[in-house]
């Protein structure tokens, strides 16, 4: 049979089995199963049974296409595959694989439909199914939106089961023992007499068979790995200094590049003088790049020094000159002609808010992602191909972008996704990759690594937008009867999509995410998104819209409760329309001994947010000391439906809380003439160990769907802290960062 014929048959394996296993919801406008990209590049003796499992004589490789930015994605994906494949994680290699449409992410589309996350009606699920099909169609291989587990929970287990059953069929053909009498264990098929045939000896035969299309996933009671504490696959490397990140790439003959970019973001490069830089030790060349100038040298530090020595005439930024200008643009957006969405409009808010309404205005600042590994990319332009080594959440977009820069076809752009030293959304962006390719095009055959200095990384980040909110509410008969929240923000999605040449069809759901879809039945309840004019170039920042919107919604809910002497937990429970949320609220109240007396200088605050479909409630306890506010303890309850690894779950919840509270306390990027006034960690400060409170976490599994946990712990932290500070001091904090108004110990 021709090679083409074999490929066509083998690639049918995962697609058809996935449908049998129930991955594909509803109807597909695009029914053909995805091509298996591993088949394009197999070495002699290798077999790729699905796009996720590759076996050769030396071992088994699990393909984990969602990037690991620290959130443990490689481990959790490997565990889902290994559970059904019957291998242990110490027996396999883990590889992110090539960029390919086969690794599309469907779960991300769940955020894009205008239905409450708790709505499982036919209409809501059908919309999600259509959105899923669209994601598959465009082959959206993206890591983000807390989707790695929701997207992979079924798909990866099915892939593991298909590979296992096909290997069993191969063993049956080889030995004559019927498949029903075979078992699998630790990467071997076990014959009835106890003899073990390693998968590695069966893979070649398995690859020639008709796939085993019907697989039944195991009952959770049979799981060996899922739900039990795991050791991360990268933990030893990361504890011994042997983990290698994109910034650590070494290639023969590699040169090192640095950039000096126009500090006035979006401004032109009118002219520059690189004569001093070119005269410096180790400098090889100076190259104009998108947004500024690059220096190539034989050492990163020498490149940094030379970049600093470039003198340039920078054009002005299109941004407002002052922060007052930014806030004025946001304030001006509260008007009908800027209205972007009104997905929630229950009752009659305007009629209900009549007598003595409670009102408030809130602000959230620009924030940098500032992952500790500065962004970087290494590019080698060779003959007939381009190779790029970088940590990215969007490998296919990298391919497309480099195809434009280099004029090579996308299939000739080879993206080697690297371990990532933190992202928080920054590695959805591609500026560093584009600039590295611009440099590499001037020195074909020589690999070049572009490393941003911390200063360039921070001042040219695509920030979390500054956002403003205005709220009105009404108490009637001792109950919250109306809540009207307007949120004004430029569109993150339009800004991000604009950078890849796409436009956002329709409203930006992130302008109101974390506010409009909350599971409460307030009789008169309205959430309106207003799209402000583009200001700074902005991007997704861990938990995206919910990072600001929960602060507005939950702070104002607390204000309404206090105005009427209502208990904020009891009032939320009274209004709650979702059982999973109710248990989360009850759990955090019990953990924190909510309602028990506290000393006069202490206070407790609660906040809740359902983001990415995951309900999370947090209670903060603070003390008002002579030196300032001290955060004593935090209690968190969260429900993800199914906890894959309790160790990683606990780590992600605590990390998310620390992220949320640290930035709420002190995080702020301010622009003057379009230039960031914070350049490094001395002025863009974040939480340190001595400020870290004790955090107690409880994970629940009542929810009907499996949800992610990388982002949802972030949004409630800021309002829970603000509400606790109010309880301790009587001071209401409506603007982040809080340190502009109170001292922290």
């Amino acid at each position, binding site marked *: 049979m021709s090679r083409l014929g074999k490929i066509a048959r083998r690639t049918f394996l995962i697609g058809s089995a996935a449908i049998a296993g129930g991955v594909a919801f509803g109807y597909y406008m695009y029914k053909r199963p995805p091509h298996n990209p591993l088949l394009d590049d197999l070495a002699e003796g290798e077999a790729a049974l699905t796009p996720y499992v590759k076996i050769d004589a030396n071992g088994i490789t699990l393909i984990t296409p969602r990037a690991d930015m*620290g959130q443990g994605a490689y481990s959790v994906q490997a565990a889902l595959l290994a559970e059904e494949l019957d291998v242990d994680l110490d027996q396999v290699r883990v590889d992110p694989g090539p960029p390919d449409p086969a690794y599309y992410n469907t779960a991300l589309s769940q955020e894009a439909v205008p239905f409450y996350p708790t709505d499982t009606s036919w209409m809501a699920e059908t919309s999600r199914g259509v959105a899923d099909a669209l994601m598959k169609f465009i082959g959206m291989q993206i890591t983000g939106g807390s989707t790695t587990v929701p997207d992979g929970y079924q798909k990866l287990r099915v892939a593991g089961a298909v590979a296992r059953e096909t290997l069993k069929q191969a063993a049956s053909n080889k030995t004559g023992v019927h498949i029903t009498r075979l078992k699998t264990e630790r990467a071997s098929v076990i014959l009835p007499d106890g003899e073990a045939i390693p998968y590695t000896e069966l893979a070649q035969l398995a690859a020639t068979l008709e796939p085993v299309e019907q697989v039944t996933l195991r009952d959770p009671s049979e799981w060996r790995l899922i739900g039990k504490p795991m050791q*991360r696959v990268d933990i030893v490397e990361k504890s*011994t*200094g042997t983990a290698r990140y994109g910034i650590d790439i070494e290639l023969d003959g590699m040169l090192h590049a640095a950039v000096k970019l126009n500090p006035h973001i979006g401004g032109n490069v009118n002219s520059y003088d690189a004569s001093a830089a070119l005269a410096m030790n180790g400098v090889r060349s100076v190259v104009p790049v998108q947004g500024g100038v690059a220096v190539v040298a034989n050492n990163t530090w020498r490149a940094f020094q030379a970049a600093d020595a470039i003198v340039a005439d920078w054009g002005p930024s299109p941004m407002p000159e002052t922060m007052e200008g930014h806030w004025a643009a946001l304030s001006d957006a509260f008007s009908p002609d800027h209205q972007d969405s009104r997905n929630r409009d229950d009752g009659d808010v305007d009629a209900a808010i009549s007598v003595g309404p409670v009102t408030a205005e809130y602000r959230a600042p620009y924030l940098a992602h500032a992952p500790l590994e500065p962004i970087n990319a290494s590019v080698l332009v060779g003959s007939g191909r381009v190779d790029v080594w970088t940590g990215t959440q969007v490998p296919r977009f990298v391919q497309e972008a480099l195809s434009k820069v280099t004029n090579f076809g996308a299939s000739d752009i080879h993206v080697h996704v690297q371990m990532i030293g933190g992202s928080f959304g920054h590695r959805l962006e591609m500026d560093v990759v584009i600039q590295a390719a611009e440099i590499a095009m001037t020195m074909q055959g020589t690999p070049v690594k572009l490393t941003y*200095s*911390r200063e360039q990384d921070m001042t040219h980040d695509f920030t979390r937008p500054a956002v403003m909110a205005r709220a009105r509410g009404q108490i009637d008969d001792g109950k919250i009867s109306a809540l009207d929240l307007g949120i004004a923000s430029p569109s993150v999605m339009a800004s991000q999509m604009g950078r890849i040449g796409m436009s956002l069809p329709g409203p930006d759901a992130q302008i109101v995410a974390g506010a409009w879809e909350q599971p409460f039945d307030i009789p008169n309840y309205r959430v309106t998104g207003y799209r402000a004019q583009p200001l700074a170039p902005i991007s997704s920042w861990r938990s995206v819209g919910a990072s600001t919107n929960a602060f507005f919604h939950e702070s104002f809910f607390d204000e309404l409760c206090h105005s009427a002497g209502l208990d904020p937990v009891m009032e939320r429970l009274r209004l709650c329309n979702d059982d999973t949320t109710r248990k989360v609220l009850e759990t955090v109240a019990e953990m924190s001994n909510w309602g028990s007396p506290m000393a006069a200088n202490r206070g407790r605050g609660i906040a809740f947010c359902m983001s990415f479909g995951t309900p999370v409630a947090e209670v903060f306890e603070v003390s008002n000391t002579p030196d300032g506010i001290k955060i004593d303890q935090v209690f968190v309850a969260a429900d993800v439906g199914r906890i894959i690894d309790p160790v990683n779950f606990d780590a992600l919840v605590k*990390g998310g809380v*620390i992220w949320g509270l640290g930035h709420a306390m002190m995080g702020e990027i301010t622009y003057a003439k379009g230039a960031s006034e914070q350049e490094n960690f001395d002025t863009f400060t974040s939480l*340190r160990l001595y400020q*870290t409170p004790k955090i107690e976490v409880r994970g629940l599994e009542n929810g009907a769907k499996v949800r992610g946990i990388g982002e949802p712990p972030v949004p409630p932290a800021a309002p829970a802290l603000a509400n606790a500070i109010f309880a301790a001091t009587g001071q209401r904090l409506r603007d982040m960062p809080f340190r502009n108004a109170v001292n922290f110990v």
Partner: protein
Amino acid sequence: MKLNVDGRSYTVDVEAEMPLLWVLRDELKIKGVKYGCGIAACGACTVHIDRVAVRSCQTAVGDVDGDITTIEGLGNIDALYAVQAAWIEHQVAQCGYCQSGQIMQAADLLSTTPNPTDAEIDDAMSGNLCRCGTYPRIRDAVKSAAANLAGGN
């Protein structure tokens, strides 16, 4: 210029003002030492000189006058140092990028203060920034490492 790093001798020909960090990373290819800020504000570049923790991004190579130990020389996969073993036991790392520096800082603390109080841990470790928020497990791991070192493990 001669350097002794992780028990090996090297001769390097670089400017005296080049930070030790970049000599280690780009000249000697010791990549376990990390660049985070370049201004001694994050601690990712922490190494030991004569067993004392220093920020290698702010240490000119010409000023180095002792033996250098990096995360790669502190211990290795076959012979873990007690602090590294505690970091694995508690699964401290998330992205892991700051952890070389965190471990070197903790090793320095425990060499001078074998049984640190919470306040001493806070003081010693608060110069090391972690953006993922692994601080609760860093606290636990430092205490485990102290107990293991005291027990002779």
